[in-house]
């Protein structure tokens, strides 16, 4: 029982990180109708920037700011420089370009920093609190929970409560009409990409201290999990991403705790296959959107 509570709590914290990353995929999907397969590589570049800045200044917060800026800048550059030039009409060229970008970024990081994992310290204690004899969340987990929930709230407010959010949603849903109404659609799309890069960078930055360390492939698994989450919740639905993220996080945590770490990727694959085969429309998304 104690174990179950502990695993659920850990799963919640990990799941929120995955949910954040999935949210970044949802933002790109809403802005440009494509899944950014390069998101993990971009996030890893941002975490390396954070690592360098934290190493130089000694401040975790400076590193965090650097990660957010780098993630946004790289993704905006990717959108302006590459994605905009991709032939439209089929998702295939966009995916292939993203895969090429993954290879370029990861191998460049590998050449620059070598293959070893660099340990990255968490800004808070990682030992869990013990409540009534049961180890629960650590201060760092609480920090992750707070940041993730705050960010989700912020994004919800941005998209639903501001004029900018309205323009972002409008230019994604009906670019032609939005342009006629005076929305600068290309700028909105770039902004969506930048926003998504910052969110992805934050998710990767929160994840890395709890893992083996930082190297070029640190965020690969995060991407696979986040993709599963985005499909589970529906690529169009932020709420779905949030709920799906927690579900996947708890599933991975439980499977790792009871069956061993080796089974977790299989569980994620099984879940993804099941969702895609039984309900390819996703659980929270409108079906006709997925057909596009």
């Amino acid at each position, binding site marked *: 029982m104690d174990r179950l509570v502990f695993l659920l709590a850990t799963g919640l914290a990990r799941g929120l990180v995955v949910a954040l990353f999935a949210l970044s995929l949802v933002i790109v999907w809403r802005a440009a109708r494509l899944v950014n397969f390069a998101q993990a590589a971009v996030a890893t570049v941002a975490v390396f920037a954070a690592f360098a800045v934290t190493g130089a200044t000694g401040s975790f917060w400076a590193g965090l700011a650097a990660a957010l800026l780098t993630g946004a800048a790289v993704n905006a550059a990717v959108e302006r420089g590459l994605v905009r030039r991709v032939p439209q009409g089929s998702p295939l060229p966009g995916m292939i370009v993203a895969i090429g970008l993954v*290879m*370029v970024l990861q191998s460049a990081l*590998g050449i620059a920093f*070598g293959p070893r994992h660099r340990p990255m310290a968490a800004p808070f204690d990682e030992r869990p609190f013990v409540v009534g004899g049961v180890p629960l969340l650590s201060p760092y987990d609480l920090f992750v929970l707070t940041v993730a929930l705050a960010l989700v709230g912020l994004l919800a407010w941005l998209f639903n409560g501001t004029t900018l959010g309205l323009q972002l949603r409008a230019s994604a849903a009906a670019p032609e009409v939005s342009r006629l109404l005076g929305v600068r659609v290309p700028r909105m799309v770039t902004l969506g990409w930048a926003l998504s890069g910052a969110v992805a960078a934050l998710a990767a930055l929160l994840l890395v201290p709890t893992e083996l360390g930082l190297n070029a492939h640190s965020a690969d698994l995060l991407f696979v999990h986040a*993709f599963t989450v985005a499909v589970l919740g529906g690529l169009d639905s932020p709420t779905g991403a949030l709920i799906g993220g927690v579900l996947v996080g708890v599933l991975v945590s439980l499977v790792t705790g009871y069956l061993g770490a*080796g*089974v977790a990727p*299989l569980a994620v*694959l099984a879940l993804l296959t099941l969702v895609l085969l039984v309900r390819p429309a996703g659980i929270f998304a409108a079906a006709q959107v997925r057909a596009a």
Partner: protein
Amino acid sequence: MTATRPAETEEIAVRDARCSDPRPARRLTPTQRILLRAVVLTLLAVAATFLLDPYRNYQLAVVAATFCATAGLTLLVGLTGQLSLGHAVLMAAGGYGYALAVNAASSAGLDGGGAAGAARVVLGLVGALVASGALGGLLGLAGARLRGPYLAGLTLAMVVALPALTTQVPALGGDQGLAVPFEGVPEVLSLLIVVEQWHAWVAIVVAALAVTPLAVLRSGRAGLRMRAVHGDETAARLSGVSPARVKVGAFVASSLAAGLGGAVLCLVTQSVGPGRYDLAFSLLLVVAAVVGGLGSLGGAAAGAALVVLLPWLVDTVTGAVGVPADLEQRLSGNLAVLVFGALLIVVTLAWPGGLARAAARRRHRPHRPRGRTDAPAAPPPPPASQPLER
């Protein structure tokens, strides 16, 4: 709205192909012509092994094995538009199928050389076909319901989960994988050739057996259906083509070829394990298909040679130039991947159609360009310049 254009152009490309087909000088059907070309190319490749030293012959065998997978992938992506990032896993399925069948055969008494060895290899290839065909069928069923990013994501998750699967299932031998018995040179040939050359021969013949059916499929009715489904699913359905059946069929055909490639790789390296078939290798297969030109089998061969030889070339050059050991370790593997990634981007954005289109253009410069690569990124030339007859 945009979907009608590729369908139109493809239809014209196909019609064009038909009206230029019956050349009275040669009374061969397209299938016969493909078979003839396959035999000639196979004989040429076998002859070429005599010019190579043993290590080059080993590399040639690896290229031939990779060619099986890239040919399957290029057919799948180029003709049906389904992007699979998991062809390495299909190769692995073939390799494991081969290893399990061969090991079962040798424990059942089929060991030693000669006829027993040949029978064992054939059984192994059948095992590879069964394993990769079954997995490909399942994936195809998933792919028939999914489009675009979903299939790519599913296959990506599959590649990531492969090491976990091999550790969890005891019959697959964990991280070490499975070893298979050594296949020596048959006695008749043992004075003439060494084992690497023999393996290259086997690889070439299996590659021919894997790729020729794909070429026949591509040029025939099945290829037409695949293009129709890719161009416009609704229109295809209205014309009586079942998109689901076509997609599953294409996926299975592609998987069978990849499985044979995995079997050859297993035979040549005498083992199969999860380490070789990681995400990086899977992406290299995509690179080979794209750089060669999506939909083109010749391009797939060139791409396979590129992805096998370039990493080796980079290692050789960095070793010869004498860069510091630390930097050499970092460059090893990474530099080639950097080049491949850049190639992938450049080819998709600036040079759609890849090597195959470039070669076709060079060959037919006086006439109209004939890059029939069928990639959506590379629509055939505008219909205005085509001889229309209706």
